[in-house]
């Protein structure tokens, strides 16, 4: 399902790229992104070289190129939208093109990173580089329960929809809002139980 594919960018594989340590991959990706951003606007040869590099790594990782392309295309409209603002300036076409290229390259880098690196490994890296514990715990819990909550939400939506006989904007808004509200209440209660489970296994805040 497209939604599942969207929520789980990681593609399991056993290539050399997959086996690189997560910290190194994160550093490389972030470094690449910074490089692209800080390059002069018309460094087209540099952009081309980086693009070639990304393609090379993707091939080495035996990544699902089509899947990654789909992700790229899904996110591209937002990039184009903001870049269009540059066209409002007189002589803004080169600026528009350069912004577009930079953003796309950065997007592609991150897509490649998440396709070859597991989120839990990235979390471990954050922990090692001493990102505040509270933030890492929050990220970990968020990622863990994201799918649980999304599934719960879909179940509630299905239940609502099967009892909504008049399709329309009002009922759609009401249903979505009620699902969200109920989801928060349930999430709150689940958070209580998770707290108890953490305490039961010796956790101290």
């Amino acid at each position, binding site marked *: 399902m497209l939604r599942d594919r969207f929520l789980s*960018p990681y593609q399991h594989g056993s290539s050399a790229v997959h086996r690189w340590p997560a910290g190194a991959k994160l550093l490389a990706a972030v470094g690449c*992104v*910074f490089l*692209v*951003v800080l390059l002069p606007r018309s460094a087209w040869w540099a952009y081309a070289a980086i693009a070639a590099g990304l393609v090379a790594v993707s091939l080495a990782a035996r990544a699902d190129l089509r899947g990654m392309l789909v992700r790229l295309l899904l*996110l591209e409209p*937002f990039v184009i939208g*903001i*870049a269009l*603002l*540059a066209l409002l*300036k007189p002589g803004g076409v080169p*600026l528009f093109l*350069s*912004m577009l*290229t*930079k*953003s796309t390259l*950065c*997007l592609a880098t*991150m*897509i490649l*990173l*998440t396709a070859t690196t597991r989120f839990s490994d*990235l979390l471990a890296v954050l922990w090692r580089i001493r990102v*505040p514990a*509270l*933030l890492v715990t*929050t*990220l*970990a*819990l*968020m*990622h*863990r*329960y*994201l799918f*649980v*909550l*999304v599934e719960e*939400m879909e179940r509630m939506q299905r239940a609502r929809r099967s009892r909504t006989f008049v399709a329309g*904007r009002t009922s*759609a*808004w009401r249903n*979505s*809002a009620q699902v*969200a*509200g*109920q*989801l*928060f*209440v349930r*999430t*709150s209660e*689940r*958070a*209580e139980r*998770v*707290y108890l489970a953490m305490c039961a296994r010796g956790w101290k*805040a």
Partner: protein
Amino acid sequence: MHVPDGFLDARTLAATAGLAAVGLGLALREVRRNLPPRRVPLIGLAAAFVFAAQMLNFPVAAGTSGHLIGAALAAVLLGPAAAIVAMTAVLLLQSLMFADGGITALGANVLNLAVIAPLAAYGVYRAVRSIAGTGQQATLLATGFAAWCSTMAAALACAVQLAASGVVEWGTVLAAMGSVHMVIGLGEAVITMLIVAVVLRARPELVTSAVPAMQPTHRRTVAYGTALVIGLMVLVAPFASSLPDGLEHVAERFGFASLASASQPAPLPDYSLVPLADSSPWLATVLAGALGALVAFAVAWFVARALAAPVHPTARH
């Protein structure tokens, strides 16, 4: 309004990253010190909740849908510090895993959506509640208006960053982002109010309530005072264009004098906003903002009234 990589210049990236780090650091410290351990897992789960809720559809017209941003919702349900941490987590996940919002621009996005937005929301929420009271209707009104204000605050911050990076003219980006987000803000306000109404009905204790209510006499004073100020702005503003050159000077400095057709303030014999825009674009902007706020407040007021109505209004004895 997530800013992708490649739009902001190095100076803006650094400045926003620094501010975001400070904001986040303070929030983390506040949570560590004052949040009871029971509520710590809730921050993570609430972040997952915001992420999930952002997927819900709120159809607008002809196939387009609105979506929740969630900063105001988080602030009202978790309090400001926890909301900052939760929204930061959401943005980090969006940026790292879904390439939604750039990596270098993370500082800017965190600053706008995870620090400014929840803080603005909470500030407005508290302020409105201290005037309007702590009942269900007042809480909903405060929530709605807070959501609109937080959207505008984030949009304005984003506009400042885009303009400072030389991507767009200040006047253009302000007009573009401001006007669009006035409408988006209304959607955010209504959606947030609807959701909070559900929570209020099911588990009212989950909605942040630690606000001391003002004395009734003080309340009236503040309400009248606010009305007076807004009224003054609307009535007096046209004549303010004949104020000294100071304003024009400011307008030139900020670089959006390109919107102004005259470099001298023109005398205004009649009350109209268009010539005003020509000579004092700054005031016109402020006016537009104030009008937008008034509209948002009114919308929030009406929706709050509708939502807080008793469940069975037709019950008769």
